[in-house]
């Protein structure tokens, strides 16, 4: 399996999804060799910690741990691949860290993989380099199916397929159309190439499936939707004492165009106009639109009731949910969107946009169009003012989330593997 991140060092939902999926696959009797690029030395250490130190914290049963560790092997590849960065930003990022990384690279990787010792200054080069490594790994054999997550790893998947002749399944968590208004043709080309070469394509929602079929021209017969699930085992409860007397409405995620933060702010301004006391808004996370959002909040004159936390790590995410009364995900385009499930698991009712994949599996979340700030404000207001509504949303929401198990999702993934192997 080719991925790019794994908990706890994650930038988005993909790492969490890969984690749940590999665990679910292990329960379904599938052995996984997980290959991931590592961006820095610091990430290396954190992942070593996943395996060594987190046994008790992450898993309920020791038996479970051994079974899991027996089936999932980690293999790390030195690479600069970093999720959620487009080629332009990437160049900038690389320039600043180049010197440091160059040395690091020499230390860890040159001897082993015999690369030139020079780090590519653009993302595409990195993708290719990752593919080369993938080919080398695939040559060792010992597997039946190749599974690649998102475009950065598609080339690696293709390389592995060509070297080994084994079937390729690619997993579409997001497409270039979800990442912003400008579609990068190079990324699109890679994505299409991956989908064309794949024996099976898994999409995380029907929304994404439609994009894959319509915008990439992929044969619908080989595209299968497997909705993500959530795994809350091993999550310890956090103590969070409510810090403000007001109710708290939270946006939690990357502050980027795709996530629709400005609709949240506009709706917040409307709600605050209706009830200036008794409610606060929090935008947790960071992203390229953060500064713009801060200015927008200042312009609306609501900054004494609207707070920014910056990027939240580890327990702070849990803490944030524990302090929230309403969770809002107004995404403009969201292939799936796992965080509303986390919110509902923490007994926080969620408002989600109809343009998110997760809307396909949730019945008890309030759904609005992302652009409809009146409807959004209305929903926020209702959840604040009518306890009966929030009570139902909380109770039913928790039951709903509990029924979304990775074991079930992984069973579907396994079925896709089987059909890929049998060539049907």
């Amino acid at each position, binding site marked *: 399996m080719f991925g790019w991140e794994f908990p706890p060092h994650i930038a988005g939902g993909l790492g969490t999804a890969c984690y749940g999926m590999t665990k679910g696959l292990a329960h379904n009797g599938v052995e996984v060799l997980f290959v991931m690029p590592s961006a820095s030395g610091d990430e290396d250490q954190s992942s070593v910690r996943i395996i060594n130190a987190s046994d008790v914290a992450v898993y309920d049963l020791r038996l479970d741990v051994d079974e899991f560790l027996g089936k999932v092997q980690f293999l790390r590849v030195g690479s600069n691949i970093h999720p959620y960065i487009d080629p332009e930003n990437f160049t900038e990022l690389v320039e600043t860290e180049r010197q440091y990384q160059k040395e690091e690279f020499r230390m860890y990787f040159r001897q082993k993989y015999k690369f030139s010792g020079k780090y590519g200054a653009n993302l595409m080069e990195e993708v290719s380099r990752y593919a080369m490594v993938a080919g080398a790994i695939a040559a060792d054999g010992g597997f039946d199916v190749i599974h690649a997550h998102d475009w950065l790893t598609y080339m690696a998947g293709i390389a592995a397929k060509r070297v080994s002749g084994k079937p390729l399944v690619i997993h579409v968590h997001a497409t270039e159309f979800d990442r912003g208004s400008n579609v990068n043709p190079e990324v699109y080309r890679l994505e299409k190439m991956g989908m064309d070469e794949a024996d099976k394509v898994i999409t995380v929602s029907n929304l994404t499936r439609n994009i894959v079929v319509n915008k990439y021209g992929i044969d619908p017969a080989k595209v299968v939707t497997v909705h993500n699930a959530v795994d809350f085992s091993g999550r310890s409860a956090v103590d*969070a004492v409510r810090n403000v*007397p007001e109710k708290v409405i939270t946006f939690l995620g990357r502050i980027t165009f795709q996530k629709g933060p400005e609709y949240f702010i506009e709706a917040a301004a409307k709600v605050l106009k209706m009830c200036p006391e008794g409610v606060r808004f929090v935008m947790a996370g960071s992203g390229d639109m953060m500064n713009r959002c801060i*200015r927008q909040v200042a*312009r609306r*004159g609501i*900054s*004494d009731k609207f*707070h*920014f*936390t910056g990027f939240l790590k580890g327990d702070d995410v849990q803490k944030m949910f524990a302090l929230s009364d309403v969770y809002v995900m107004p995404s403009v385009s969201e292939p799936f969107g796992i965080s509303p499930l986390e919110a509902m698991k923490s007994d926080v009712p969620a408002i989600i946009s109809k343009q998110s994949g997760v809307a396909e599996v949730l019945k008890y979340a309030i759904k609005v169009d992302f652009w409809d700030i009146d409807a959004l404000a209305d929903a926020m207001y209702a959840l604040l003012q009518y306890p009966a509504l929030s009570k139902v949303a909380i109770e039913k929401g928790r039951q709903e989330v509990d029924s979304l198990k990775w074991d079930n999702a992984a069973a579907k993934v396994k079925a896709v593997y089987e059909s890929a192997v049998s060539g049907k």
Partner: protein
Amino acid sequence: MGKNVCLYFQVHQPDRLRQFRFFDIGNETHYFDDFANRTIMRRIADRCYLRANNILLELIRRNGGAFKVAFSISGTAMEQFALYAPEVIDSFRALAATGCVEFLAETCSHSLASLFSEKEFKKQVKEHSAMVHKLFGVKPVTFRNTELIYSDAIGETVASMGFSAMLTEGAKHILGWKSPNFIYTNAINPRLKLLLRNFSLSDDIAFRFSDKGWASWPLTADIYAGWLEDALRSDDVVNLFMDYETFGEHQKAESGIFDFLTALPAEAMARGIRFRTPGEVVRECQPVAPLHVGFPISWSDEERDTSAWLGNELQSEAFSKACALEKDVARAKDAKLTSVYRKLQESDHFYYMSTKFFSDGSVHSYFNPYDTPYEAFINYMNVLSDFEIRVKEKIKENNGK
């Protein structure tokens, strides 16, 4: 009349805020980064205040009272001296005892109160005057507003409080062809005399002194005294107003700034130049004209206006939210909350939110503990939100009694 030079040094240190996260709102009550405030105060006391004070004391003694200076020490600086560097207060007292030093009045918390509330402004000025009187035994008669902010209306308020003179910037867009080297008066109340900063000659010391790319580097007291003489050929007074931290902090000791300071009085006096305090200048020199200043000016940045503190939407938002609390704080009737409210009004908090990185950015970033104006804004608003909760709780408590 005669050739006069008026030296005034501003002494101020802000109460920097600690990192205050959303999770701290409602849970934490301490807002200030005591460690940073203490460390910086100790450093500047050693590098600048104590050293420069010794030099000034020596100069006054050597010249038998012919050398004079003025200070304005913000209330926050006085409080920090008392907490972290009490010997600095002693050394200022020694200067005060010579009778050659004038202490000016300002707002106690170096605030922008003059821009939003006359009532709050007057309270803060009175508080500051009382502090000065308590520490140095003198009652200030000359006023200097935060960052030399001035307008006709502010001048009128200051005059109504009984001050006879006020300091401000000799801003080009206000003066036009006129020279800053004369005494002017407030346009509404001519009793209030205005001393205008000669920014060119002041900044030669404050900003350019150690700049090796500057055509006049290295600047000696001899050359500089010559410039003063030229400026005073037909004018009355050159006002050299600058931050006291110029000596030893902005301009490092290695640049020779202390030697320059030591040598300057003798060089100037040799050319017939007299040193006068602002109070003396307005008594001795006749005002030449009223000065019209419709919109507030200051000594900051190229624009010489209030845009360094209130130039962007973040700053206006934070400032207006802070100002909006005035009445509630008064109703809470709590000494501690009032004192914190004053500290939250320090102009520095708003300065950190400035987005003027390009023209005067180097100065801005020197003074700034935050990486970006956005961080400064978020942190300030979090603190202010918590403060608002405390104030409301207190009011509720008062009403319950």
